């Protein structure tokens, strides 16, 4: 309906392969970015920023990470939480050991630390596949969390084991610690997520992404056309863990302001997995949609029953959440394995052909 593509022809491959080949999509994306960077900080209150948008952004980043590994490269992982924890603790160690280091650099480096750990745990993917691998990634999950809980070096020998994120600034604005405003934190997260999402999109639409998808769709055929399976999978593990690691660092430093291993337990891994199943396997957009869904559902469950006069107990809400997530996962796997992203895509296709059905 909104699409007027007639006359938008491509006379170069660069334009044909652009991220948003349709003008209306480019405009839409520009509007979204403008609203996110300018509009939202101007209107939104602290509560909205810190309890909704910031976790949403961080979840989206982690979901992109898992989506790269699972959605694009086809390697199911249940160790997302572990890799996130890796990033969080690496960032903590780096930030405390090198207080002068810019926090952006700290986060990026902690991403690389996670990537390295991811590669180690990705090595078995050469020999084992499918759910065997999923089980193997559980090893990463449990081992890493245990490591961060039990080895005091990671928490700088703090007695309680729970530590708060040190205050750091970017361009004079505090983005972590008590003095950081919700707006500054939000903008900081948003910038990180926007840039990294762009990088992820770039990766998946080029040579690297094609190799991943080839492995995912048919690993034997992929190898026979010359794709090195181990290298390709390890790269996916590395990139995926990088994203998860940065997300973990953001989570600990910006969202909760405290670094604790328990925030990244097995349930976190499942949560992220649900995001990409609901949002859409093999879709960057889907990672955002899934994250939004998972952030919003509990709030919805809190607000709606109260609004219609049937308030639920906290335990009840927790159980309802479990059931709804479980049911939704099954629903999406049956009805639309490509999740919300595919639904959006289909809707867009409809709009492009409107009013015709095909």
């Amino acid at each position, binding site marked *: 309906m909104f699409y007027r593509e007639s006359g938008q022809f491509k006379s170069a491959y660069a334009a044909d392969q652009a991220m948003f080949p349709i003008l209306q999509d480019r405009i839409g994306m520009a509007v979204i970015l403008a609203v996110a960077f300018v509009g939202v900080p101007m209107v939104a209150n602290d509560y909205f920023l810190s309890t909704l948008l910031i976790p949403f952004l961080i979840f989206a980043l982690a979901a992109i990470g898992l989506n790269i590994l699972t959605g694009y490269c086809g390697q199911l992982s249940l160790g997302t939480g572990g890799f996130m924890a890796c990033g969080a603790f690496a960032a903590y160690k780096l930030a405390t050991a090198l207080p002068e280091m810019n926090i952006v650099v700290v986060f990026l480096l902690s991403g690389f630390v996670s990537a390295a750990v991811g590669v180690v745990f990705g090595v078995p993917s050469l*020999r084992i596949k499918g759910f065997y691998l999923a*089980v*193997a990634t*559980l090893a990463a999950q449990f081992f890493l969390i*245990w490591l961060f809980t039990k080895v005091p070096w990671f928490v700088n020998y703090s007695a309680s084991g729970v530590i708060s994120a040190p205050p750091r600034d970017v361009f004079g604005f505090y983005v972590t610690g008590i003095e950081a405003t919700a707006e500054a934190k939000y903008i900081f997260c948003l910038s990180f997520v926007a840039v990294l999402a762009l990088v992820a999109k770039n990766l998946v639409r080029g040579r690297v992404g094609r190799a991943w998808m080839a492995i995912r769709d048919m690993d034997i055929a992929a190898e026979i056309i010359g794709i090195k399976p181990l290298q390709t999978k390890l790269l996916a593990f590395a990139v995926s863990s990088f994203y998860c690691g940065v997300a973990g660092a953001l989570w600990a430093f910006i969202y909760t302001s405290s670094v604790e291993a328990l925030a990244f337990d097995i349930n976190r891994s499942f949560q992220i*997995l649900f995001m990409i199943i609901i949002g859409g396997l093999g879709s960057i957009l889907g990672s955002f949609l899934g994250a939004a869904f998972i952030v919003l559902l509990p709030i919805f469950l809190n607000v709606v029953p109260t609004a219609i006069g049937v308030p639920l107990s906290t*335990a009840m809400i927790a159980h309802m959440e479990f059931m709804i*997530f479980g049911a939704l*996962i099954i629903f999406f*796997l049956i009805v639309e394995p490509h999740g919300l992203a595919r639904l959006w895509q289909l809707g867009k296709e409809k709009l492009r052909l409107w009013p015709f059905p095909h």
Partner: protein
Amino acid sequence: MTGDILGFLFGPLKEIWEFPIFFVEVVIGGLLTGVMYSLVALGFVLIFKASGVFNFAQGAMVLCAALSFVGFQELGAPIWLALILTLATMLLMAMAIERLVLRPLVNQPAIILFMATIGITFFIDGLFQTIWGSDIKRMDVGIPKEPMEFGGVLVNTFDIVAALVAGTLVATLAFFFQSTRIGRALRAVADDHQAAQSVGIPLRTIWVIVWAVAGLVALVAGIMWGSKLGVQFSLALIALKALPVLILGGFTSIPGAIIGGLIIGVGEKVAEVYWAPGIGGGIEDWFAYILALVFLMFRPQGLFGEKIIERV
């Protein structure tokens, strides 16, 4: 530094050498825990063999069975009635899963089915806790828990009973598989879905039966674990412990599940008792996984699994 590491690695060996009786106790304790792991793993294997589904929900089924059993008892039902009602519940659940999840997903890649069972896990976890509540419940089916002594070695009576129950269950299942018509049908299904269907075995019925049997196994496991640890959400996590057991034993082998369980049980216990103190303890969370992982690198199909021949 090197000395520290060597000391850490080999120090406990000396200890074992010096106190062999204690070591035997530890090993037996490990074996008996291993039996319990095997019990959960058995459920996985059953379902995997008959439907190719890696049922992540097996742990949740253990929790659900235990919750229902205790719940019915709390409502005033005698043990036998609670047992029957719980079995009926598990059968109902098996039918629902077959109808609502497996049937629509038939012919999907295994990984999709696996993720679907994660969905099942969450759904039934939520559902049963909504019904029965999430408080820790005590379960007592009258199994004595006093330690007994065999030739200087102390053993927990409860563990012995659990081992006996598990053994009986395995024997029954083995008989069921080898000698009954349904059992043979199940084996046929496992070998070749189409062949099984073409000789007139209704695949859907088979699936319901398998899931129901897995429910029964879950109930037994639930009662055992529940009596030992109390019935609570963490029971579902026991199931996660069964995963490395499976990797070790191979997904398709009942003996593998048992032996894998024993190896994990012993390995974990020994490591926990002798080596864990040196590195902070609590290693049972991950030791089994790392063990399985290392093992996988050398034998991807597990101890008793069939070698995977890739075809193009």
